[in-house]
């Protein structure tokens, strides 16, 4: 057994042999790459498909910080990614409709122009 004496001050950084820990990273990428990908793997009683966890790390590449924080930081590319948001899908449809309408107007105008 260790002879280390336990002091409630330790967490405040008083231990001479162990500097206080730095603040936990606020960067979600730092947190996730450790809690999902590193650490001891013990098979619990609840089966977690490890493939799910691996897929998750891939999916997380598509995730920006938290939704609230992302909006706060003005990061909202995912709002316009058709894979991720139905709003974006709707907008894409609207855009496509607009493009088709414009093309139709062009085609309808074309014979008149060539006739002039």
């Amino acid at each position: 057994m260790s002879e280390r004496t336990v002091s409630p001050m330790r967490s405040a950084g008083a231990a001479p042999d162990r500097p206080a820990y730095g603040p936990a990273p606020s960067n979600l990428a730092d947190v996730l790459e450790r809690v999902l990908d590193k650490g001891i793997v013990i098979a619990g009683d609840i089966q977690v498909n490890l493939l799910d966890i691996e897929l998750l790390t891939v999916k997380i590449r598509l995730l920006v910080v938290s939704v609230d924080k992302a909006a706060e930081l003005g990061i909202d590319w995912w709002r316009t990614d058709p894979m991720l948001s139905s709003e974006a899908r709707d907008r894409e449809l609207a855009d496509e409709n607009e493009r088709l309408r414009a093309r139709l107007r062009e085609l309808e105008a074309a014979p008149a122009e060539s006739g002039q």
Partner: protein
Amino acid sequence: MSAPARYVFAVARDLQVAELAGTHGFHGATIDVVEHEGLSAVVCDVDLEEFGEEPLTRNLEDLAWVERVARTHNEVVWMVAAVSTCAPLRLVTVCADDDSVRAKVDSLRSDLEDVLDRIEGRQEWSVKVLVPQRPVAESPRATPAASGADYLRRKREASDRRRDLTEEAVDAAREVHEVAHDHAVASRRLMPQDPRLTGRTETMVLNAAYLVEAQEHEAFTAALHAAGEQHPLVTVEVEGPWPAYSFAVLG
């Protein structure tokens, strides 16, 4: 709460439960310690309606849920590491009850002791090297190309400048890694992080974790600061100390 199970955050050595007062698990759950022959599994109750097999499969698809759980998991690990030698477990390790937790700790006992021996008195540091995304400078006189050959020559020069920048960044990353590695007992290269996840515009050319003796941390950070000054092109980010996640691996 229906059908509580035990969520395991970490396995620790030399841990006093009283030191974890004020730390909470998910939804404010009390943190408990399951002792087994000198090893302490840090656990809390979780509801199987949230952490059962089927809900978990669903919840892991919900990135907001994953973030919440990941941050709580991380906070508990942080507190445990501050007051013990701590081997963090991977996210969402759930056992039926304390007897099951003990049985699993028992079956991995010697491996867990090896891991704890490896990280005792040591801490993890994160080192990243980033290159600012700046446009390649145009030649001073931005006049139109005089000829096709002139145009091609300019294209080649711009491409050379880009390549030089990349090569310098890669050299800097290699050098920073070597310096950090020399001051560490172990190192692991991690995947560069996606700028969409970090919200940063720079390109990450090094993302690595180093296991450093607690009493060596000042020499470690000083050496990296000096290495950073040698390479003004890149930004060297040193963060820590963190619990030894990247080095708490079995086998």
